[in-house]
């Protein structure tokens, strides 16, 4: 009984130590989050807004884009609202030298979150990831 109590205490202390060590590496640094650039223009004139509310864009932009792809490729219907080119024109990112960054950089609007969550994309195998063309 005695030994098992002592080993339980030890185990408890070890757990607390592990938790503290795993946390202490960045206790004061805080959780890393993706850094997103501000959009350079607005979808609605005079308002700071995207084509849909931000909360919805965060959750289901991929569905809009896929739907747009099917409309365009299968039906031949080309609309501007959910066009990839429009996304890129607003959400352009400039690096420290004022140069536009490509999808390869983690500063890129899309890549900031996509690399954060481990979601890979094949949009940019064909499409340009910067306004005016260019990878």
């Amino acid at each position: 009984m005695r030994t098992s109590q002592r080993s339980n205490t030890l185990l408890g202390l070890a757990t607390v130590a592990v938790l503290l060590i795993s946390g202490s590496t960045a206790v004061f640094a805080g959780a890393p989050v993706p850094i997103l650039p501000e959009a350079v223009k607005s979808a609605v004139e005079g308002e700071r807004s995207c084509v849909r509310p931000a909360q919805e864009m965060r959750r289901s932009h991929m569905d809009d884009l896929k739907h747009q792809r099917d409309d365009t490729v299968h039906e031949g219907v080309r609309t501007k609202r959910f066009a990839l080119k429009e996304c890129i024109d607003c959400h352009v990112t400039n690096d420290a030298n004022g140069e536009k960054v490509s999808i390869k950089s983690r500063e890129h609007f899309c890549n900031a979150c996509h690399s954060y969550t481990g979601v890979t994309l094949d949009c940019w195998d064909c499409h340009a990831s910067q306004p005016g063309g260019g990878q």
Partner: protein
Amino acid sequence: MSFLSILYALLFYAATILLVVGLGRKIAQYARTPAPLKIPTMPAPTTQTGVVIRVATEVVFFRQLFKSNKWIWVFGWMFHMGLFLVLARHLRYFTEPVWTWVVLIQPFGKYASFAMVAGLAGLWARRILVERIRYISAPSDHLMLALLLGIGLSGMGMTFVAHIDIVSLKAFLLGLMRFDWSHSLPSDALLLIHLLLVAILMIIFPISKLLHAPGVFFSPTLNQVDNAREKRHLAPWAAELDAKRAE
């Protein structure tokens, strides 16, 4: 931090401590439990390396189940391998930057969830449809399957039906790991259900039949070397009695 986030943060801190301490205590107990007899299931390996290979084959392929019942093996193995891939896919929420191999298995983990849920459904059907098994099934056997199925289905709902804000979720989780409580948990219903069920699973894991996961490594019929003739098997407590008799 919203009220809901505080509630879930406390829930997960408590669940993690209970899981780690509970599992640690159980493993310590298993390690101390005497195995007085030499009882490997024959034919058994005659070397320690052989035993390592034997245990590994059992853990990865469920060899004994495969030999005894093919259809139960299909469902059981589908569920466990599916669960393994799905869990590995979840590492993206706890690592920053995400490890390359975790990025590479993302699509596989996604479809492994179908195997996982199909396996669970098969195992549950077994409990209900096979009369002999239904007779020996306790409520906890059914509830455990329901819990795992609930976790699987709510998770698949978020992947395939109603997406959630996974960036905020990751910020919240990384925050919990670094004691930075400035990020709120997204309050989508599916996510809250999923996380609640996972916390329940973590809490009951160390007092449930799911302990077969660490337990399989301590099974004396599996982990003993067939060397009874070369080396006398003597449990420590029996050695004491032996020494006393020799006096």
